[in-house]
């Protein structure tokens, strides 16, 4: 009975892969983008101000010598970056307020806030 579920899980995974292949790539969308650097845990800026009620993009740059992982439970995003690497996360319209983010690989020093207003 476990093997039955195993094949069910595998087919769900394959199905989701097909779904994701169809899901449109939104990289080229025209939305405001904001730069966020992380140097071995230290974010720059530590307080990122963004417009509320609007979809936007955070361009992440690892400017340090160690891997970092941008993570935010409130924004529901996590992204690991190698040193020198860059990537982005797309954030859907937020209510005005403050949202915490952190570097999961340097959790003590790597704390920041995103302010939507």
């Amino acid at each position, binding site marked *: *009975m*476990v*093997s039955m*579920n*195993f094949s069910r*899980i595998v087919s*769900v*995974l394959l199905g*989701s*892969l097909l*779904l*994701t*292949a169809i*899901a*449109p*790539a*939104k*990289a080229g969308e025209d939305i405001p983008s904001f730069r966020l650097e992380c140097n*071995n845990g230290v974010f720059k800026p530590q307080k990122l101000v963004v417009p509320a009620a609007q979809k936007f993009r955070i361009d992440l740059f690892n400017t*340090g*010598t*160690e*891997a970092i*992982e941008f*993570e*935010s*439970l*409130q*924004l*529901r*995003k996590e992204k*690991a*970056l*190698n*040193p*020198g690497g860059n990537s*982005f*996360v*797309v954030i*859907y319209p937020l*209510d005005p*307020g403050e949202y*915490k*983010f*952190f570097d*999961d*690989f*340097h*959790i*003590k020093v790597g*704390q920041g806030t995103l302010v939507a207003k």
Partner: protein
Amino acid sequence: MQNLAQIFFVMWRETVEAMLVVGILHAWLLHHASGKAGIRYLWLGVLMGLGGALLLGLGIEALSTVLSDEGQEIFQSVLQFAAAALIVQMVFWMRRNARNLKKDMEFTLGQRAQEKNWWGVASLAAIAVAREGGETVVFLSSLATGSNSLASPTFWIALGLGVVLAALTFYALQLGGKLISWRLFFKATETMLLMLACALLIGAVERMIGIQIVPALVNQLWDSSALLEDSSVFGGVVSAFTGYRARPSLTILLVFSAYWAGVRWKLLRSR
């Protein structure tokens, strides 16, 4: 030196979930006299899982270059849903089969039926190890860069320490199974597994909310970060193992409540 502790800690956190699954299964098999034959299958499952982890880890890396941001989120989310379902299934499988193992299986059940159970054990272990192992492979390969690369001793020391700590967790579980009353031990580990499955479920739903496939309904019902901040070191561990959120959305609260209501109902039914 601070980063060494960080790597070691994250490494432990990544592997301890798989260790819990394997460790609890192991203790459970040891506890039932006729379960000892199944232990070989457990380790076989672990080996298969390790192989699967490597494939999955490399596959995820490859997929991340091919899939869109949304696609990656969906993929990760599906893996988390599957893992949560698997762990819940494992808990109820153990409860059901405990009764079978109590009777002397060699006489009341045929060889085939016994083997079927053992393959169940092997595949549970294999899937759990493959999934968590896959995450660990991705984590390690992303961590092994820059000044912590494969060439640096820091990485290997941290890796070694992480494995040692995971092994200690495993042995702690075996000891617990022998020293504490079995009923208490099983109840405690069963609860741990169910909390872990809940955390995985919450994580998967949040990803779906993050890409707007599922609505949040109300964005932030409350803020209990004064009690426990989920982005702190300790709070992060609690939230990873229980699904705790300092600022939950309505959807998350509903999922959390529905999960525990459903689990409790099933637990009562399977008595």
